[in-house]
C-alpha cells in the first residue's frame, strides 16, 4: 500500500526519544511507544518490516548510503532525517544510529535513537538535501556523493562535525 506524502508536520517534543532496532538487513526488531505514536503504526505493523517503511521520498539516498557505510564498519551515524508517517505526514528527527554487538563482538543489528532536531539545522539542511536529491534524480548517486564531498571540502569540515555543530 503506497502512502501519498502530505505537508502535515509533526514536531517532536523536547523529551521525545524515538528508539528502534533492526537486524543486519534493516528489518525492524524493536520500536518504542513514541515511535509508534508519532509514526502512527502499531507494533505488529512494524516488527519484521524494513525500516524504510518510514523513509520519506524527499530524503536523498546518499544519506542512507552514508549511514549504512558507517554503521556497517562499526561507526555511529548522525543525521537529520525526514521521516514519513503512516498517514503521509512527516516529522524531522536528529538520528543517531549505532551497531548492536553480540557477546563475540559481531554486529547483529542496529539501534537508532531519534531526538528532537534543532530547527535552524533543519532549515539549513533542507536546501542541501534538495540539491542532493535533484542530482540523484538527474545524474545518480555518484553525482550527489561528489557534491557532498566537495561541499564538505569547501567548508573545511567533515560530515560528523557539520551535523554535530548544526545540532548544537
Amino acid at each position: 500500500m503506497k502512502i501519498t506524502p502530505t505537508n502535515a508536520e509533526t514536531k517532536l517534543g523536547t523529551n521525545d526519544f524515538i528508539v528502534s532496532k533492526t537486524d543486519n538487513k534493516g528489518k525492524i526488531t524493536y520500536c518504542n511507544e513514541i515511535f509508534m505514536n508519532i509514526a502512527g503504526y502499531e507494533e505488529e505493523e512494524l516488527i519484521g518490516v524494513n525500516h524504510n517503511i518510514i523513509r520519506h521520498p524527499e530524503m536523498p539516498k546518499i544519506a542512507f548510503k552514508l549511514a549504512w557505510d558507517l554503521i556497517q564498519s562499526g561507526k555511529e551515524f548522525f543525521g537529520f532525517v525526514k521521516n514519513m508517517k503512516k498517514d503521509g505526514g512527516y516529522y524531522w528527527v536528529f538520528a543517531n544510529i549505532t551497531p548492536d554487538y553480540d557477546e563475540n563482538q559481531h554486529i547483529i543489528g542496529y539501534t537508532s535513537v531519534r531526538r528532537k532536531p534543532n530547527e535552524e539545522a533543519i532549515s539549513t539542511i533542507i536546501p542541501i538535501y534538495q540539491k542532493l536529491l535533484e542530482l540523484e534524480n538527474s545524474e545518480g548517486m555518484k553525482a550527489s556523493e561528489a557534491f557532498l564531498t566537495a561541499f564538505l571540502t569547501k567548508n573545511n569540515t567533515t560530515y560528523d562535525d557539520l551535523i554535530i555543530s548544526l545540532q548544537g
Partner: protein
Amino acid sequence: MNLFAKLKLLIASLVVVCLLLLVAYFSTMESLVKVLVIVLPIQALIVLSVVSMYTNAYRNELRKTNEVLKKVANGNLYHRITNIDKSNGNLSMICWSMNNLLDQVEAFSRDISSSLRGIAKGNMTRKMLPSGLHGDFVRVSNEINNALEVIAVAQSKDEFIQKMIITLNAYTHGDYRSSINIEGMQEDIIKLAQGINELGRALNELSKVNYENGLILKEGSTHLTHNVATMTQAANSQATSLEETSVALDEITKSMQQSNQNTLQMASYADELTASANDGERLANETTISMDEINEQVNAINDAITVIDQIAFQTNILSLNAAVEAATAGEAGKGFAVVAAEVRNLATRSAQAAKEIKSLVENATSKANHGKEIASKMINGYSTLNKNIDLTMNLLKDITVSSKEQEKAIVQINDSIAILDKNTQENAKIAQDTNDIALQSNEISLKIVEQANKEFEGKEEIQRKFNVKV
C-alpha cells in the same frame, strides 16, 4: 493474596453475578431448574477456559519479560520485550516501562561509549546527548559533558603547547616563517605564545637582513672581482703600452739626436757658406773698385788720346803750313814739301791711331762698365745670399733650440714613463692584492648567505631581487 487467587476470586464473583442475573431472569419461569442445570456447567466451562487462556497469556508475557531481563542483567542491553500483548493492560504498561528504561540505559551507555572513544581519538566534539534522556541520565550526561569541557580545554592547551614546541623546533632548524595562532588560546599561555611569535618575527627580520646583506656583499664582491680583473688587465695592457712607448721614445730620441747633428752640420755649412759669400762680396767690391780704376785709367788714356789727337791736328796744320811755305820757297822748298807731306802723313796716321785707340778705350770702358754692373749684381746677389743664410741660420738656431727643448721634453717624458711604469707595477700589485681580498670577500659572502639561508617571510622577494636561483 497472590495474583492467581485474585483472578479466581474475580472469576467466581463473575459466575455468581451471572447466576444471580439468570435467577432474576428466569425466576418467573417454570423451567428455571432445568435451565440452571444446563446453563450453569456451560457457564462454568466458558469461564474456566477464559481464565485458563488469560492465565496462559499472562504467564507467557511474564516469561518473555523474565527472559529479556535475564539477558539484560547479563549486560546485553540491546534486548527488548516485543510483541507486547495490549490486552494485558497493566502488564503491557510494565513491559513498555521496562523497554523505556532499557532505551534510556542503553542510549546512555552507548553515548558514554561513543564519547569516550572520541576522547581516545582526541575528538572532543562527540559529547553526551542529554536530549531525550531523563532524570539522572540527563544529570550524569551533563556532568560528563562538563568533564569533557575540562579535558577539551586541557587538550586544547596541550595542542597549543605542541604547536609552540613545533614552532620553536622550526626556529631551531632555521625556519622562522611560522607563527602561532592565538585564537581561542587560554589566557595563562597566551603570553608565552605571543613571546614565541615576537621571537619568530625578530628572527625572521634578522635573517632577512642577514640574507639580504650577504647577497649584497656577494654581489658587491663578485662585482669587485670582476672590476679587479678588468683593472689587472688594464694595468698589464698599460705596462705593455708603456714599454712600447718607451721603445718609440728611444727611437725618437735617436732620430732627434741625428737631426740635431744634421742641424749642427748644416750650421757649420752655413757658416762656411757665409764666409764664402763674404769673400765673394768682397771680391765683387774689389772688382768694382778695379773697374773704377780701369775707367779712371781709360779716361786718362782718353785724355792722352785727346792730347795726341790735338797734337796730330796741330801737326797736320803745321805740315800744311810747312807745305805752303815749301811751295812758296819753290824748288828749295821741294824737299821740305816732301818732309811736310810725310809729317802730315804721320799726323794723319797719329790721328787715325788715336781714333782707333779711342774706339778701343771706349770699348774697354764699355766692358769695364759691364764688368762693374756684373760686380754690382754679384754684390746684390751675395747680399741676398747672406740674408738667406742669416734666415737659415736663424731657423737652424730655432731648430737647435727646439731640439734641445724637445730633448728636455723627451727626458721629462722618459721620467714620466718611468714613474708611470712604477705606478703601473704598483697598480698591478694592488690589483692582485685587491683580487685576493675580493675573492676572500666573495667566500665570506657565500658563507654569510649560506648561514643566513634560513626559511623566513620575504625570502622569495629578496631572491627575486638578487636573481637567486632556487
